């Protein structure tokens, strides 16, 4: 039976570094994905991810379990992302298509997937990324937390500190912009 987050947190607070390592291994990918989808830069997302765990480690003795450990981590990561956006004073950057590495793409392909399907999948991924980059930060954050991290409306509201109805409105507005942008891209392809 694997340890729960809360048990690992308790052991970490008592000085067990392996337990904290286990928490890192468990949560580094979701936190990295959150950071990447929020700020859109791989390198900076990695930095945010690392800084999130450093801050979490330092603040661990003060963690009283009022919230889930994952929510607490998400909050730290989101604050760091917000700082990044403010510091850089810009919207998320979509990485250039020339970054695409065909060898990496081929390695990422599903065994049954043709290279054409793979390219189409990557194209769509890039289109979504571009459309997401157009959204205001709060709408993007709501969509990322809902779509990719499966948080409830209430959890998002608690995390970002706004009323439940605001979360729904942000989601609706964000999805509506995405719908328009993705449809525009579909038309452009015809």
């Amino acid at each position, binding site marked *: 039976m694997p340890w729960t987050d809360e048990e690992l947190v308790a052991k970490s607070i008592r000085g067990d570094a392996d337990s904290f390592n286990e928490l890192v291994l468990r949560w*580094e990918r979701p936190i*990295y994905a959150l950071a990447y989808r929020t700020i859109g830069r*791989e390198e900076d997302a990695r930095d945010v991810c690392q800084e999130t*765990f450093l801050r979490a480690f330092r603040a661990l003795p003060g963690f009283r379990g009022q919230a889930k450990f994952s929510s607490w981590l998400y909050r730290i990561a989101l604050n760091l992302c917000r700082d990044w956006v403010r510091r850089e004073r810009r919207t998320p950057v979509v990485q250039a298509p020339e970054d695409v590495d065909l060898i990496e793409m081929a390695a990422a392909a599903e065994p049954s997937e043709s290279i054409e399907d793979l390219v189409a999948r990557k194209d769509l991924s890039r289109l979504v990324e571009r459309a997401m980059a157009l959204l205001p930060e709060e709408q993007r954050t709501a969509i990322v937390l809902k*779509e990719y991290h499966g948080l*409830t409306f209430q959890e998002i509201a608690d995390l970002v500190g706004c009323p439940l109805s605001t979360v729904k409105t942000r989601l609706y507005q964000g999805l509506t912009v995405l719908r328009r942008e993705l449809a525009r891209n579909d038309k452009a392809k015809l």
Partner: protein
Amino acid sequence: MTDSFCGYDGDRDEALVAFLYDDGGDRQERELFEAHLITCARCRNELDALRGVRTQLARWAPPEPAFAVTYGNPQSAIRTPQSRWWRDIPAWAQVAAALLFLGVSAGIANLDVRYDANGLSVRTGWMPPE
């Protein structure tokens, strides 16, 4: 009801999103909106479109993180770049290594390539002489 008119008695946008995600909430409100959908083509169409957006969103995968964070000693966290060492080698050195490898391989195989009146022939030391 037409496609452009919606007479939903409540916050339509919120109800639409709540229905789209089926995220707990008020069961009665959900049933109310579900009943409304039967008669409102505009909401039905928008719901379908937003479901389509969600399908597309599912295709967005962030790049694989090329790092591993280890906290053996958490006070001095180490970030270890994943091994892509061959990318750090200059291109000329990679080409030189490839040519050297081919040369050595050809030498071991006693490769003999000829192009004459009979056309192209390739012979190795492993083949018996003609």
